[in-house]
């Protein structure tokens, strides 16, 4: 039972990677040569968090499809956990993005494709929880949540594409198909931070899954006693 709710090894590994990434970012990677200077260091957290949020939503998307196919509640649990964590990471992306925006561009907010898309992502996945709370019957709740998770996930890239129709923004494109546009030392630090953040996500998913399973088990036990 205890095993279910804690995955300490993963947390430790994630922590080591994140701290190492941070140290490398400040001590090894060069200070940004353009106007940004030290404020660019937040990039080593900002971008990995964004990547992790997208990973979480992708897993939720796959879990939703698997749920609709199998009606197995374990996929619903995975979906909820991933959406919840994805939402948390999205809020962090916005927060770090705004701090960086203030430092680099002199403004907290810019109606720019990526920021705007993440704002909508937040609204979408908050709506996911509103939807869940509005349905009482368990199976129906899981089904609707899965449908919504699928549609929301499809909508995100479309929204991102649509925001390109708006007047251009200031966000740089760092990683393109041609390469990363980063010096090697910067890339190493970035890569380690990214691994750390992804490990953290996996650790959190495992822990939350354990919690959700326990919740279900408690509910079952209550029903048994009550019934």
């Amino acid at each position, binding site marked *: 039972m205890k095993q279910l709710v804690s995955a300490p090894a993963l947390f430790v590994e994630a922590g080591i990677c994140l701290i190492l990434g941070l140290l490398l970012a400040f001590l090894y990677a060069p200070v940004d040569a353009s106007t940004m200077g030290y404020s660019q260091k937040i990039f080593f957290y900002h971008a990995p968090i964004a990547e992790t949020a997208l990973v979480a939503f992708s897993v939720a998307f796959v879990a939703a499809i698997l749920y609709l196919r199998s009606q197995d509640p374990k996929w619903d649990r995975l979906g909820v956990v991933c959406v919840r964590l994805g939402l948390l990471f999205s809020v962090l992306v916005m927060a770090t993005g705004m701090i960086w925006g203030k430092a680099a561009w002199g403004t907290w907010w810019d109606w720019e494709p990526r920021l705007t898309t993440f704002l909508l992502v937040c*609204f979408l996945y908050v709506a996911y929880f509103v*939807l869940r709370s509005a349905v009482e019957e368990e199976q129906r709740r899981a*089904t609707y949540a899965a449908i919504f998770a699928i*549609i929301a996930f499809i909508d995100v890239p479309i929204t991102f594409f649509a925001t390109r129709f708006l007047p251009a923004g200031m966000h740089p494109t760092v990683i393109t198909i041609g390469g990363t546009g980063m010096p090697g030392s910067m890339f190493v630090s970035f890569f380690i931070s990214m691994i750390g953040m992804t490990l953290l996500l996996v650790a959190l998913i495992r822990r939350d899954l354990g919690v959700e399973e326990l919740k279900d088990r408690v509910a079952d036990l209550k029903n048994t006693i009550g019934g």
Partner: protein
Amino acid sequence: MAILRKDLIRELRTREMLISMILFVLLAMVIFHYAFTVKEGADLTYFTGGMLWVTFIFAMLLGLNRSFAQEKDERCLDGLLLCPVDRVTIFLAKTAGNLIFLLIVQVVAVPVFTLFFVQRSYVADLLPFVVVLLLADVGICALGTLLATISMNTRSRDLLLPIIFLPLIVPVLIAATGATTLIFAEGAGLGGLLARVLFLLGFDVVFIVAAYGTYDFAIGE
């Protein structure tokens, strides 16, 4: 087809939904006029596209809620579900019905908005305008019908629909508003709107397919 006919006949007999939707549109126009006339003789041409699409989307929300509330209240939906038709047929019929209502609303709203707000003639660009209108409408109705089916089966019903519908419809709003504004204000032809038109087409295809795949689950047992 029969479901579509039933919805249309029902509406034509009572006219309650259409009348309130059209009234809503006219009232929205008056409200927008007061909200946006920031100084004497301000030219609102650049805002008209945005006003129109905001109005259509909110009018559609009203319509979507009604179209399923009726089914639910009178337990008509149970009857529909007992019919020996594919569930997806119900989706297509409902979408078509909503599309027709939206088009009727637009037939009233567009000339009125144009008359009051647009200060140059766009008769020459009527064709691209109609294309944009139809493509955006299909997207709004397909996605709206799917989400309304979900929301009517929940506890909060009409309260939930805007919360799940509005964030999802933003891409259509961006593309349609941009295209309409270009037509109204700058007289862009179909060539200048190509990217947006293709985008709207893509949106329609993606969400009709997505709704097609999930509607069976949405409408329930």
